[in-house]
């Protein structure tokens, strides 16, 4: 497991029914591409997050497949439609099998 992996998400706390809300996510992760070499010329093995998903009340918002060309500390901005109060579930899947999760609540008036 990569060290110090910290997911962060930014979601509005409140919205009106039917609103499109903007969501920003960032997870600290080295995203080792598998292209670099260490001081002895050995290839540093690939270690990336290969998939990211966001669901709202069990309904999928976005599902991203990631390759090594995604930058260190993967950042995504996207939008979701909210019709009711609920919870966003964010999940990141690491090459090594680790799964990182985060949630955010939104109140719909």
């Amino acid at each position, binding site marked *: 497991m990569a060290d110090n992996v910290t997911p962060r998400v930014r979601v509005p706390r409140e919205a009106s029914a039917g609103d499109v809300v903007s969501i920003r996510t960032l997870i600290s992760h080295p995203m080792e591409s598998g292209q670099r070499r260490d001081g002895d010329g050995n290839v540093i093995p690939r270690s990336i997050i290969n998939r990211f998903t966001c669901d709202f009340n069990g309904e999928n918002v*976005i599902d991203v497949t990631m390759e090594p060309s995604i930058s260190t500390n993967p950042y995504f901005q996207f939008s979701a439609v909210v019709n009711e109060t609920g919870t966003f579930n964010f999940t990141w899947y690491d090459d090594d099998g680790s799964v990182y999760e985060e949630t955010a609540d939104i109140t719909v008036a």
Partner: protein
Amino acid sequence: AITLLPGMASAALVDDAINAFTGGAEAGSDGITLIAPEIAENGNTVPIEVDAPGAEAIIVLAAGNPNPGVATFNFGPASGAQAASTRIRLAGEQDVIAIARMPDGTFRRAQQEVKVTIGGCGG
């Protein structure tokens, strides 16, 4: 000493990646927007944005990276707009390609050349 990159993506690799997504179908150029800087100072983190209203999925490729695949965005029923922003690595000056798959089975393609001052894939 000159450090050799472990092989840039050949045009064949890029074509393979495109065909794997489109099944060889032709792609139109309307209805998709790819926003990328013309000049990126740091190839390690180049901001890009894709937007294809109504798309099911958008694939992003970097034609000059050792592995052309960057990301595939699949939009679910709760997505607000079929658009997303992220940051990518670019090994050098090259074309960034975005292709959207629409629900009716057609494809839309956008492409932008990005000049990179410091490459983002080498050691």
